[in-house]
Each structure stands twice: as C-alpha cells, then as structure tokens.
C-alpha cells in the first residue's frame, strides 16, 4: 500500500493547476484510490456514492486549492522521512567524535530509528587543491551530508556536484526567515542563485564600547554603521597619556597592529592591495589616507597595539590579555565570543566590572548594509549522488533547528549562530549589532584563497615594518609610504614570477 500511496502523491504534486476544470488525471487517480480502498468489500453502490462525493469535492478542490495543497505538503513532510526503518546517515565533519557530541547524538534522540556514521574532513593542506580533495573524499566515502569550506562549496556547486535544497524547502515549507537576514542570500549567491547548503554559525565583528569610559571623558557613544573615519575620530578623543596599566586606549582593533587596522579600514572602504588580476594596487590616495590615519592613531597613542606575550593564557590570564576586558580600551572591534568573555570574566574573576554595550562594526558608507568582516566559514550540503538525500535533508534540518540553536547557545555561548539565539546572560545588550549587517559571500571565498593569503601576509609585514619605522620616528611618513609602494610592488611581482615558474614546471612534468 505504502509505495502506491507515495507514488500517487508525487503524481499529484506534478499536476498542472488548472482552475477551469478538474484534470482528467486527478479524476482517474481519485477513482483508482477509491477502488483500492474498498476492494475487499466489492460493494458497488458504496463505491459509487463515495466516488460521487469525491468528484464534487475534487471540483471544490480547485477553488480552494491553496489550503488543500497545504494539507498535501504537510502530509508529504511526515511521510517522506521514514521514522520507522532502522538505518544510518553518513556525515563528513571536522572529526567524527565532535560531530556526535554537537549534533549526531541529538539526531538519534530525535529519530531513534536512525544511526549516524561519521567521517573526518580532508586535512587542510595549503599545497593541495582542496576542492579536488573534497571531491575525492565524496567519491570514495560517499557521505550523505558534507561540511564544506566556502570556496570548496562554491566550486562544487558550480560543477553540479551538490544537490539543490530548494525542492526540499518548498515541500516542507521550511522557514528560511528564521535565519539571520543575508545568510541564506549569501549562500544562495555562492551557489549561483540556487541554495545548495545552510550553515548553523558564522563570524562577524561588532564594536564593543565601555560606557563608563565614554561618560568619564564626555565622549558621545558610538553609533551603528559609522565609517572608519568616524570611528578613528571618536577614538582620538580619549586621552592617550599615562603609563601602561593605568592609561586608556580609544580603540583596540581586532587585529591590533598597523597593518591589521589598515586592512580592516581598507575592507570597509572596498580597497585592496591587489587588484582583480592580482597586480599591486597600493598606489592610490585611498590607501595613503588609511595609512595616514593608522600612523596618526599609533603616533597619537589612541590605537592599541597587541603586545607579543609569552605568558600563560589560561584562567584569568586569558581575560587579562584583552585590553577591553581589563577596562583599558574604550572601544574594541571583536567577534561574538567577547560578549561571552565579558560575562564570564566578570562572573569568575570580577574583571570587566563596567557598563558596556554594542553597535555595529564600521561600514563602507556606500554599502551601509554590508558587513566588511562577516564570513560564512563552512557550509552543510548534500552531494548530488547521496543515496539517502531525504535522510541527509532531515539531518540538515536538525542541525539548523531551533532546539540545536538553543543547546548551542548554552554549550558554546561564544559562537554566533545563524539562527539568532542569544545566550541568557546577554539579554539586555544590543547583540543585534552582530546581526544587522549582511555577510559578503565573496569575502568568505577569498578567506580560503591560499596563494592570496600567503602574499597578503608578506604585504602586511611590509606595511608593519614601514609604518612602525615612521611611528617610531626613524623615517618620515612620506618616506614610509614610498617604501611600502616600492617593496609591495616588488613582492607582488616576485610572487607572480614564482607562480609562473611553478606552472611551467608542472607543464614540463606533464610533458
């Protein structure tokens, strides 16, 4: 009985919805259905009465098709996922054990007929084409659910190696609006307009500020969607005098070094040291202004620079390393984890005993709704050849469920969920600041570009060298900029030459 029923349901979903009449196919199916249902009794008269009633109903069905289709959808939902048969679903994650404690065991609790098999992600290897490594893993281990870095996700989606989630979502009326705005759109953009995956957490920055310090120095609180210029001007208003330990910094950036601040400000301004072809692009006025601001900030002493420390990082020392937690920085750009750190440091060690709150990170004034830092790190998807796509989809729904979001908010309170679920201790703070801006999907992909990252690190160290020399008064700011431009261009060219020769060798090897 069961296969027949689901077959005919499938048929029904494919009917053209013709409001002018009952399609012949439906009429026939209904009749067949009735015949099937009463076959044991063979009562002709009753069959006919029921059939007649159904015909009338079927006519009405097309007037009221919306609510009725709703019924069919719901019915499909419970029927298609089989909660009786003992079987297992295979998941690739960072490592099997942690998947089980994060999501796997809870899945079995939800569906006691299911078991979960896990395989580990291919190890990260900068020398390797990670997309190929994931493809080989999928080919070899045949997982039903995969967990892909954003760049691999983008590539596999483009190659048609992933299953679209759109039909599942439509069928289950799965509520995508429960996700933080921009997340689903961002993933869809990575999939070239089709949604091939979902992710339960991501990362972005927000601006934390110490209300006590702002009040003490009579500085107006920061606001949402400031520009980097506004932010630096605000930071400048805090006195930069005094010894370490008693002095105040206007701003502790997330990457607290000259190149780190410059890079963050450049991201918000849409600037990069490399253009689309990978050529040097640091000769612009835009970059000069950013370096000037950074130079002024460090020279003036209102920007915090991270100290290289080798001391212990456990217990109270972990918190004491962060100048915002110790009350030394008026503002800090940081990930969601710091909200939790603020609560924990106060609870455990009496640190961070001040009033604080949050606004959004600074933005590009031309794109005030985009986050310059938010990245979708890793994305759950279903390989197109998964033998158990329905089970895989059920697992993906489970991973992104309200229940799991609630559990993670308790067990991993520092993680920023894509289903906004705020840990209890953070109620009353403007944690919304983390969720107001949309992630830029391209940024997520770029974050995994190995060659680019390597060159970037080189360029950043040049920027640090030169700006520090200027800050320390060893050379003038103008001389430093000149040097950055010269050395930067050289580094880029050398990298390109190396790439060419590597390609040449590869080609030679192939020959």
């Amino acid at each position, binding site marked *: 009985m069961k296969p027949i029923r689901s077959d005919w349901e499938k048929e029904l979903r494919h009917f053209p919805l013709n409001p002018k009449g009952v399609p012949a196919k439906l009429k026939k199916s209904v009749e067949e259905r009735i015949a099937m249902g009463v076959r044991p009794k063979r009562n002709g008269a009753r069959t006919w009465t029921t059939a007649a009633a159904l015909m009338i109903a079927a006519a009405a069905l097309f007037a009221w098709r919306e609510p009725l289709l709703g019924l069919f959808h719901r019915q499909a939902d419970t029927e298609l996922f089989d909660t009786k048969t003992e079987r297992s679903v295979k998941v690739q994650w960072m490592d099997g054990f942690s998947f089980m404690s994060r999501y796997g065991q*809870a899945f079995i609790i*939800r569906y006691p007929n299911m078991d979960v098999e896990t395989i580990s992600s291919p190890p990260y290897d900068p020398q390797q084409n990670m997309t190929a490594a994931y493809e080989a893993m999928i080919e070899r281990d045949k997982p039903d659910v995969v967990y892909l870095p954003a760049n691999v996700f983008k590539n596999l989606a483009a190659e048609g190696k992933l299953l679209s989630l759109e039909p599942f979502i439509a069928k289950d009326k799965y509520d995508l609006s429960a996700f933080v705005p921009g997340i689903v759109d961002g993933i869809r953009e990575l999939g070239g307009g089709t949604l091939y995956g979902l992710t339960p957490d991501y990362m972005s920055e927000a601006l934390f500020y110490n209300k006590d310090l702002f009040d003490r120095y009579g500085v107006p609180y920061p606001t949402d969607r400031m520009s980097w210029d506004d932010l630096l001007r605000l930071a400048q208003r805090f006195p930069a005098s005094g010894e370490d330990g008693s002095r105040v910094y206007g701003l502790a950036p997330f990457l607290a070094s000259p190149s780190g601040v410059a890079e963050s400000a450049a991201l918000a301004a849409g600037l990069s040291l490399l253009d689309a072809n990978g050529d040097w692009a640091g000769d612009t006025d835009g970059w000069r202004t950013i370096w000037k601001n950074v130079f002024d900030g460090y020279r003036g002493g209102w920007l915090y620079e991270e100290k290289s420390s080798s001391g212990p990082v456990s217990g109270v020392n972990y918190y004491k390393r962060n100048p915002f937690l110790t009350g030394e920085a008026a503002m800090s750009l940081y990930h969601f984890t710091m909200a939790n750190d603020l609560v924990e440091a106060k609870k455990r060690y009496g640190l961070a005993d001040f009033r604080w709150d949050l606004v959004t990170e600074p933005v590009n004034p031309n794109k005030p709704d985009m986050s310059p830092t938010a990245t979708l790190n890793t994305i759950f998807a279903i390989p197109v050849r998964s033998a158990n796509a329905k089970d895989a989809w059920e697992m993906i729904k489970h991973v992104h469920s309200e229940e799991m979001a609630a559990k993670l908010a308790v067990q991993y309170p520092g993680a920023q969920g894509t289903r906004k679920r705020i840990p209890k201790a953070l109620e009353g703070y403007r944690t919304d600041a983390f969720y107001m801006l949309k992630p830029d999907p391209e940024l997520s992909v770029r974050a995994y570009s190995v060659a680019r990252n390597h060159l970037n690190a080189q360029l950043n160290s040049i920027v640090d060298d030169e700006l520090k020399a200027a800050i320390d008064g060893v050379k003038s700011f103008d001389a430093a900029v000149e040097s950055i431009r010269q050395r930067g261009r050289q580094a880029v060219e050398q990298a390109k030459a190396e790439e060419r020769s590597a390609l040449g060798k590869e080609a030679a090897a192939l020959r």
Partner: protein
Amino acid sequence: MKTGHAYRIAAALLAIPLLLSGCSQRPAAEPEKETIRILFSNEQSFQLVYGDYFAVKFPHLEVEIVPTDGEFTPDKNYLDEYERLIRERKPDLVIAYDASLYKRWADNGLLADLEPFARKAKFDLNAFFPAAIEQLKMNNEGKLFGLAPEFTSSALYYNKTLFDRYGVPYPTNRMTWEEVFELAQRFPIDPDPEKRIYGIHKKYWTPFDFVEEIASTEGASYASADGKRMTIDADVWRRAFNRVVAGFRSGNLYYYYKDGQPIRYGPEETKAMDLFSTGRAAMMISTTEQMFRMKQWGTGGFDWDVVTVPVDPANPEYTRYFNVAPIYAIPANAEHAAAAWKVVEYFNSEEAARISLKTSETLSTRTAFTTTKDGHSLEPFYMLKRKEESYPTLPAAFYEPFQELVIREIDEAVRGLQSADEAVRAIQTEGQSLLDEAWTKSPPPPD
C-alpha cells in the same frame, strides 16, 4: 438548499485528505513552559550528559541545576550537605551515580515511591530485569524509590583461539576462583615476558588487588566487623595469597609494577595494559568497556567469548560487580513531581534504551535489550545479582601505611624472600599495630 450543498462539499473536503493519507500526523499542542530543578554535580557536566536529550525531548522544560560540587570540601561532610540541599533547595529530580547515595536518601525518607507514578502512567516495571528492580528496592522500606535504565557489571572474557591452541577447556559460567586459576595455569609460560601469554588478567590489578578480589568474592574481610582487629591470618586469605604469589612468581600473572612503582596511567599505557586485545591474556575480567576497546584497537582476528565472573561457591548467584546507575529519583518534597516523572519515564523508556544502544556501551536494565552486541551474547553480564556488602569502617589514617605494608610483604613473597604464609602473618601482626595506632589518632564515632 445552498447550505446543504455547501455542507456536503465541506464534509467531502474533510474526507479527502483522510482518505488519501490514512492518518496524517499533526504536531501536538506545545506543552507549557515549566521549570524543574535537578540535583547534579554542576551545570556544565549536566549539559554534557543531558543537553541533547533536554534540547530535543523537553524543549519546554527550563532546567535549573542545584549543584552539588560546592559541597565537596574537606571541612564538610558531603553526605549531610547533599541531604540538606534536597531538603532546602527542593530539587524535583535527583540523578544518583552512586548506589549508596540513593540507598541513603531512600532510607532517610527523602525520596518518593515511584510505583504509584508508574501505575498511573501504565509504565511496565516487568519490562525490567528483576535483579535491577531488586537492587533498587534494597532499602529499609523495600520500595521502588528510583528507576535506573542502565547498569554496569563485569564478566570473564576468554580468548577462544588461545584455549583451542593449547587444548584447554573453555571457562564456564559461575566458576570459582580456584577453577579459574586451574585453567590459567594450563597456559605455557614463555621465558620472554614480551611473548608470554598470561593466564588471567585485569588491567591495573596489583598482587594485593588480586588477593583481595579472591577473598572478598567469598565474603571475607581483613578486619573484624567492629574494625578493631585484623582478621587476615585466616584460611581464605592464606589460600588467596598462595594462589596469587605462585601466579606472579611463575609469570602466569602480569606484574605491572616496575622498580616498585606502578606504570603510569597514560593513554599509551592504558593500551599496553590491555593484554587481552593484543592476544596476550587468555582470560580477562572487565566491564563492557573491553568490547569497546577491542573495536577501537582491533584484536588481530582471534575468537573470544564471555562467561560470568567467578563466584562464591556458597552464593553462586551473586556478584559484587552488579550495579545499577545512574538512578533517577524524585524527592518526596518535589514541587514539580509530575514534570519530573515525565523525565524519569523517558530516560527509562524503551525509546531511550534504543538510543543508548547506539550511542554508548552501557547495558540496559530492560530485558528486551539483553541479547547480543556485535555477535556476542551479553547474557553473562546479566546472570548474576547484586550482592549487598557491608565492610567495617576503618580509620582514614590506616589505609596509606597499610597499603605500603601490603605491597612490601607481597613483593617479598613474589621475589621468593619469604613464603606467602609468612607474608600473611607479617601483614596480620604489623597491620594490627597500624590499626591500633590509627584508632588512637581518630577515635570511632559514637554509635
């Protein structure tokens, strides 16, 4: 006329989905938010063990942990402090991992009888293994003050391939220690300790652990009931000492001390200590953990099976290894007893047992789950019942010097510097003076 027509259409419309789908599931009305307090070590451990269950099965319950961790300080008697927490903080649910805690709370009238709850909910207590229910009812009132979905027990694992190779008959259920040693001795002792096959093994057992295990299987204690006199110079202890000393002297038992110091308990050592998985122990006593280890580390393909642990020939149905845990109980003064019962009922349900079968290596107290694991019968873990034991309470200052004495004396016997009987006599005499001394340091509590 119109109304009648519409009515018929509506009726038919209602019939359609029913006809098409048989019955479709509708989400039940969401239960109201409710808070329950649970006595547990701390919030974090609770989350680790139960977070998934509460998130998925009880999303409407707000759990507040009454932590017991803070009460575990040297200046306080934690047993009294736990009871104070139950009386004052009124947890709705207590989860005891220690059977003696449960018994104490039951005997002190802190817990509610669960049978009325079970009756009302038509919760079938006959689905449980009688030995489990029996242990839970081992309290002054003989009532069921708790339910336990799982238990731990040990069994005797044996390497069939080795038994076949040396033509030794397989061990059987309910053997005595004497019989186990007879079998163990039939394996040849290779002069190279790295190649040697050991007759009977248990991870981390010292010679005295062996001796104590054998003697206490027969119910013997090395001190009198009032804790004042050493009683180790007795036949049962002498027999055990002789067996064990002979076993270590010949190399039939694995001696894991090196230069008088036990090998450290690191992950590597834990693996190296598992002589059974590597095919170098003919028999081994272990919980179901050993099955997990053999899966984890592999066995190289030998055949194995399990029988019950050795028993006291006078009480062949009992073992001191059988223990139900954790025990879920509802305090008599719980404010949300109904909600707590729902939790107890779920964790002891067939559904939860099905889940544990997949997610852990524990043994279910439900009879329907006692069959096999990975093709091996688990029956020997279920065959014996729990033996209630009462040991004399000895002063705390006694144990450390006594331990040193015992290790020294047995070592000398193993090295052939004295006989096993001489070791027993020395422990009796010197142990007595240690005991006397310890009592003068800490006088016994008034009865």
